[in-house]
Structure formats: structure tokens, C-alpha cells
């Protein structure tokens, strides 16, 4: 219980980037309930704007978005804010692209739809 309290004190600041609004919103709520400060954004452009104003510990980044390619967003993230850990979120069958993400500085990847507990575990590992 003390462990959990410690974590709550230093809440993980999470940036959630996905163009699937329904998915992003519900995921933000659920992660928020698990003690994270979640900022959901729905476009790559918006995400880039947000990181200029705010600091984050971890970003969860969808690989395929309508306005920008996830890898491109990742490159900008790593350039502007190298300390922020990035986890790539990918559709089934594009693991290769996710691995490319790791080559460009992402810490991990997850295949969508994923179990929430797996995601939480990976975010916590990335935040350490």
C-alpha cells in the first residue's frame, strides 16, 4: 500500500497520441484511474504543439495517424525532448514498423488492441 502511495505522489505524466478519439478518451480515463496524469491528443501536429508547452515522462504514440506518420512524430519528439520515453502503439501486422520505431529511439512497442495491464506495466517501466 505504501508502494502505491509513493507512486501516487509522483504521478506519471503521460502523453497519449492516437487519432481514434473514442479509444484515446477511454484509455486516458482508465490510465488516469491508475494514477497517471494523462493528456490525450488526437493528431500528431497537436502532440508536437503540446510537448512544447508541457513536460511529460512518457508518451504513448500511435504509429498510423491520418495527419502524420508516427515515426515522423517520434523523430521530432526525440529531437525536442530526448528525456521523454516513447512507447509505440501499432496495429496487428505492422510489428516491423514498430521495431523501426525502437531503432529511432522508442523504448518499447505494443500491438493494438492490447491488454490494459500490459500497457500500464510498460508505461511504469518506461517512467523509471
Amino acid at each position, binding site marked *: 500500500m505504501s508502494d502505491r502511495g509513493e507512486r501516487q505522489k509522483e504521478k506519471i505524466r503521460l502523453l497519449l497520441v492516437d487519432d481514434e478519439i473514442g479509444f484515446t478518451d477511454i484509455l486516458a480515463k482508465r490510465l488516469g484511474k491508475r494514477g497517471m496524469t494523462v493528456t490525450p491528443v488526437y493528431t500528431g501536429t497537436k502532440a508536437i504543439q503540446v510537448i512544447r508547452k508541457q513536460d511529460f515522462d512518457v508518451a504513448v504514440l500511435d504509429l498510423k495517424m491520418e495527419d502524420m506518420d508516427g515515426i515522423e512524430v517520434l523523430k521530432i519528439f526525440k529531437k525536442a525532448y530526448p528525456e521523454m520515453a516513447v512507447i509505440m502503439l501499432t496495429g496487428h501486422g505492422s510489428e516491423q514498423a514498430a521495431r523501426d520505431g525502437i531503432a529511432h529511439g522508442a523504448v518499447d512497442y505494443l500491438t493494438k*488492441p492490447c491488454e*490494459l495491464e500490459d500497457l500500464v506495466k510498460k508505461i511504469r517501466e518506461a517512467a523509471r
Partner: protein
Amino acid sequence: MDQEKHTHNGYYYSLTRNMLLVIILVAVTPMIVVSSIILYQFDISYHEKVHAHLQEVILKHKNDIDSFLKQKLGDIRLLAKTFTYEELRNESFLQDRLELLQQIYGPVFVDLGVINDRGLQVTYAGPFKLGKALYSNANWFKRAMESQYFKSDVFLGLRGLPHFIIAVKENVNGDSWILRATIDFVAFNNLVENIRIGETGFAFILNRKGEFQTKPLFDLIPAKVPYNDCFKDCNVCKEGVCIMEKDDEAGNRFIYVSALLKHGEWLLVYQQKASDAFSDLRGTIRVTIAIVLLAGISIVVIAFILSRKMVSRVAEADREKEMITEQVVETGKLASVGELAAGIAHEINNPVAIMVEEAGWIEDLLEEEEFKEGENLGEFKRALGQIRSQGRRCKEITHKLLSFARKTDSRTQDVQLNELIEELVALSSQRAKYSNVEIHSNLQENLPTLHVSQTELQQVLLNLMNNALDAMEKTGGKLNVSSELEGEFIVVEVADDGPGIPEANIARIFDPFFTTKPVGKGTGLGLSICYGIVKKMGGDIEVRSTIDAGTIFRVKIPIPSDQQTAV
């Protein structure tokens, strides 16, 4: 389909026919032209050669006969000049002279006679009783009196036998007298009769009236011999010998070679059937025609075989092309179906994910105090759990769809072979049930983990199992899939008890495009792809088959080196 096949056959038939005609035309035409030219030239030169030969022979004989006559005349003239009229009037003296001549020449001279200017034979030496014979009215006597010497035509005369006369006129005291010699017809006749060439070639002599001066070998009617033409021709011919070819009434062609004798009074005629004279030529023509015919037949046979072979190659190439086209179309179709499936799967994925997450969110909320006391909490949790598990099921379905749709994933990963086999057996069980096939798996436990591409290995095993099911589709049977460790390899055996593979096909079974399935059913690529995949893994695939007993495919897959120590 039948219509199409028929059109195809018609196309190849006309292709074969055209090719055959072209080859025959190209090969036979020059052969016929060249052999005709050669034959024509040969015919001309052979004719010339035969004509030249005959001319030479006749010229030689003409000279022989001329010199025979000249010699005999010379002998008689010598006799008349050497001895006086008085001496020759002595019968025994004349007899001696005759005997002397007969000693020298044989029986060429038959008799000798001295005739005075009134035509009375004053002395006679010879076998006939012609002493005191009177020749004053004889034609030859009149002619002999007109010139210095005279050679008569053949005639019967007083003795009633064919002969001719050589007469020499001399003067004594202003009166003329004649020394006459009779030349034996047989001796003279032999000169001409000896001219024989081939079976039908013979010679004879005619006078200007068309009367035979020698006895022709064959019965001959003088009128039939175109001697008038010969006489005419010979006057203009060079070297005194002329040659011509004429058809007789029966249509037989004859060669006539003629030469003038005795200052143009006699004509030596040589006659031969053209067919006989040119029999060698005809033989050569027959042989040539036979060779040309034989060559023609060989050309036709070769052309036939060649065109059949070429067309069958063309047909084979066409078939392969058709098959590849079909393959491409099929692949294209599959690809578009795959893309469609992938698109749908992707579209479904997101709403399902949201549904699952929303259910999760409700679960999260139910954890809060205010809901904990709700009497239906348990039912809520069960329903949410159901939503989550059904959502997961949807996810699995879309994952499978996406797995099939995307290209073969050749990335290597850790694969538990037995799990893979069990999955495939489960996948095939529905189809096996329809075909009345029982699937048994006999898997060795605790096999080492393989490090291969799962999708590729899956493709290989699925292909082998599908082939086995295809083989037993009508009859039903048993399909045994087993795995076991064998040294550095894991061996998977897929064994069926279907009809088996004929010996002739075993060697070609892994060849690309080799299939025994009906057109449109099989591409002939399945086993060839399997072979390629297994070889790439560093493994091996082999087949054993017995007709009516079944077929066993053995796939050997190498164990990764780090696993070998674990074993």
C-alpha cells in the same frame, strides 16, 4: 470449354500443316530444280557423246569400205596395166592370176574375165561356166565402156547370185578391152555386217535407187528407211557422216547415221533404236529419279516429325504461359481478397478495442465504493467479463484474418512444433470430417524449440496435410501426423493411406508447375514452394509412396545449435 479445346486443336493442326508445307516446299523445290537441271545437262551431253561415238564408228567403217573398194580396183588396174591383152587372153594365165589374188585376199575375188569391145567374154577364170558369155547388153558393160574403170551395184547377173563387178578398161591397137573381176558378196557383206552396237544397232548399204547392196541383219523394208533424207543430208554434212533421229510409224525412235560411199553412189546406213543407244542414260535417269523420290520421302518424313515436335513445343510453351497467367490472375485475386479482409479486420479492430476498453472502464468504476453495495454487482461483473471475452474473441478473429492476408512472414522466431501441429490438425479437422478421414497425431513430448519462420513452417505442413486430404477425398482413410527427434533434426511425418503416387511422377513431384490435378484445380507450385522453404531452413523433405498403400512425406528441420546442448 470443349469448343475452346476444339479451336485450340484446330489452331495447332493448321500450324502443323503450314509448317509441314513450308518445310517441304523449301527443301523439295531447290532439290527438284537442281536435279532437273543436272539431269537435263547430263541428257544433252550424253546424247552428244553417243552421237559422236556413232559418227566416229561409221566414219571408220566408211573409210574401211572405201579403201577395200579402192584396193580391189587398184589390184585389177595393176593386173590390166602389167600384163598385155594377149597374155591375159590365155585362160591358164588368167587362172594363175586369179589363184594368186585368192591366195592373197582369200575368196574375195570370185572370178576374172577379159571382155572385148563387143561385149564378148574372150577368157574366163572362175568357178562358173561363163566362157564366151556375151555382155553387150549388160548395163555394167555399157557403163564400163564409158570410163576408165567402173564398180557396179550388186546384182544377180547370169549366175543368179548376188555379186558386184569391178571393171577396168584398156586399149590395144585402138580397140578397147575390159578386165573384169567379181567381188564375193559374202566377203563384202561381212565388212558391213560386223558393224554391230548394242542389241538393235546394225549397218547396211543402199544405192541411190534404194536397193540393198548388203544384206541387212534384220528384215527391213527399204522404203521405211528415210534414205532420201540421208542422201540429201550427207551432201551437206561435214566429214561425210551425218546423223539424225526419226520416229517410225509405230512411234519408235531410231538413230540413223549415214555416210556416202563409192563417190556418192552408195550410202552406208547405220541404224539403232534410240532406246537401245541411250539405255545407260535411261538407267541413270531411273536411278536419279529413285534418289530424288527417296530424298523427297525422307524430307516429308523429317518435315512431319519436325513440325510435330515444334508444334508440341509451342503447345507446351502456350500451356505453361496459360498456367502462369492463371497463376498470376489467381494470385492477384487472392491479393485483393487479402487486402479486403485486412481492411475489414482493421476497421473492426478499433471499435472492438473501444468496446473492450469501455467495458473495462465500467469495471474500473464498479470498484468504487458507491457501487460496491449494488445487489446486481455480480451480474454486472459477469456481463462485463462476457463483453471482454467476446471482444477478445473478435480480436483473435481479426488477427487471423490479418495473418492470412499479409505476405508470408519469413522472420524467424521460436516455434513449438507440437503446438503448431496441433493447431493445424484442429484447422484441418473440419475438412477431414467431410472427406471421411481420421486424423491421428503422434507427437514426441518435450521437443526442443525451433528457430524458424512460423508462417512458412505452417505453410509447409498445411500444404502436405491438404495434399493428403485431397488424395483421400473420395475414398476416405487415415492421416497420421507425427513428430520425433532424430539426431540434430526434428522429423515431421505426414502419412496417408490414399492411392499413392505413380513411380513416374515421384521424380517430378517437387518440380514447379508439375501437377496431376485437373486444369484449374492445382497450380503445381505447392510442393515446390514447400521444398524451397524446407531447403532454406537447412532441412530436407523426402517422399516415399506405394501404389494403393499410401504416401509418406518426411520433413526434417534442423534444431538450432543452442537447443542441441539442451537436448
